[in-house]
């Protein structure tokens, strides 16, 4: 109950904050499938999709539905130690006539602190457009996972996730910063099946005058491994 109240509070503050700036609200489902190729190598396929329901700029303020984009990603990961993993990835984005391709490189570090765990992710990616210069982004995400029943996360239990990601991007000579803050409730069915539901609050165009944007996504995610 306490969590619902805090989420509602955050939501209402975001909406009131965003009244004079561009604000987008929508639905963001994502799903990932991972499997081992060998002792050290893993493949992960991920699909995620953004569906806008409300956008102050396009004035579809009557909750008019608009598909914004769908990303299909594939990663090849190598385990470097029990706590360290390196990945290379490829993404194809479907976006109404503006489809793009992206290459991704990332290092993820697992940190176990007391009874919760932290995932550090350092990622760089390059986006290729048909009619625009290459976009380069450098990102760092910290995600915490906290069991809600007892001190260890067991089958059938729930957990809380909190994450923040800072993204620096540069396209030719224009640069910008984006921030992504997310909270969610996770359902740990077993180690091969996890379901997360929550909110992902994104702000960007920090370095561009008069274009500051808030985006709030209602997110559901399913993580499956074989």
């Amino acid at each position, binding site marked *: 109950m306490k969590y619902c109240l805090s989420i509602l509070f955050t939501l209402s503050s975001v909406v009131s904050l965003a009244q004079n700036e561009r604000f987008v609200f929508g639905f963001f489902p994502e799903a990932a499938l991972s499997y081992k190729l060998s002792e050290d190598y893993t493949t*992960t396929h991920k699909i995620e999709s953004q569906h806008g329901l409300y956008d102050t700029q396009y004035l579809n303020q009557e909750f008019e539905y608009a598909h914004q984009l769908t990303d299909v*990603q594939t990663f090849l990961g190598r385990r470097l130690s029990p706590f360290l993993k390196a990945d290379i990835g490829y993404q194809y984005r479907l976006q109404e006539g503006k489809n793009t391709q992206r290459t991704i490189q990332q290092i993820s570090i697992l940190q176990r602190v007391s009874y919760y*765990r932290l*995932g550090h992710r350092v990622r760089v990616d390059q986006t290729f457009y048909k009619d625009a210069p290459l976009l380069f982004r450098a990102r760092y995400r910290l995600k915490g996972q906290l069991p809600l*029943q007892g001190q260890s996360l067991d089958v059938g239990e729930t957990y809380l996730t909190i994450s923040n990601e800072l993204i620096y991007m540069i396209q030719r000579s224009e640069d910008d910063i984006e921030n992504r803050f997310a909270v969610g409730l996770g359902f740990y069915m077993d180690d091969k099946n996890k379901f997360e539901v929550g909110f992902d609050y994104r702000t960007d165009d920090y370095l561009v005058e008069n274009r500051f944007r808030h985006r709030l996504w209602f997110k559901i995610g399913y*993580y499956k491994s074989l």
Partner: protein
Amino acid sequence: MRCVFTLVFIFCAVLVGFSQEKNEVERRIKSDEVHDNAKEWLKETYKKRGKTKWYYQTDGNKEVFEAKLKHNKQLHSIEFSLDGQVQNIEILIGEDELDPKVLESILKFLDTTYTKSSISKLQIQYTGDEDDLEDVIDEQEFEDVIVKYEMEFYGKNDKDDELWEALFDEHGELIQKRIINLKATDNLDY
């Protein structure tokens, strides 16, 4: 677009359909759920103790209650059977609190087995009957109790690169070790 919604629907349906496998389970419980014998032993033994948190644990066969509390600035975990009989006490300690000879033996094991290693958690474990375990805490008397050390560590050599849990005897000689399988990190990585 319809396809995306169909996918989401399938994932939700899969969720509902999953049955829970039998596995190691630990969950927080209220002290009312714990046998009175356990609470009485705790009250008698730990006269000055911090807040006690109670847990229920099972590996599918054995079921126990576990009390976690702070005593003399150390973290104690006390295991009880379901009928409230104390089974053992584990105290979280630092390397510097270990008997130098035991530490030397443990470090020798790490140095000879692994090229790279680091200790992440160390516990001293006392096993014995309830009176003897009570004496360990309130009188610092260690008669008739079995002392063992449980250690969680990272160890890497040519063959293995893992996180381990090992049990050592009172002299720091290895009794057994096993690999700790860390939980999947897919939700933290992607």
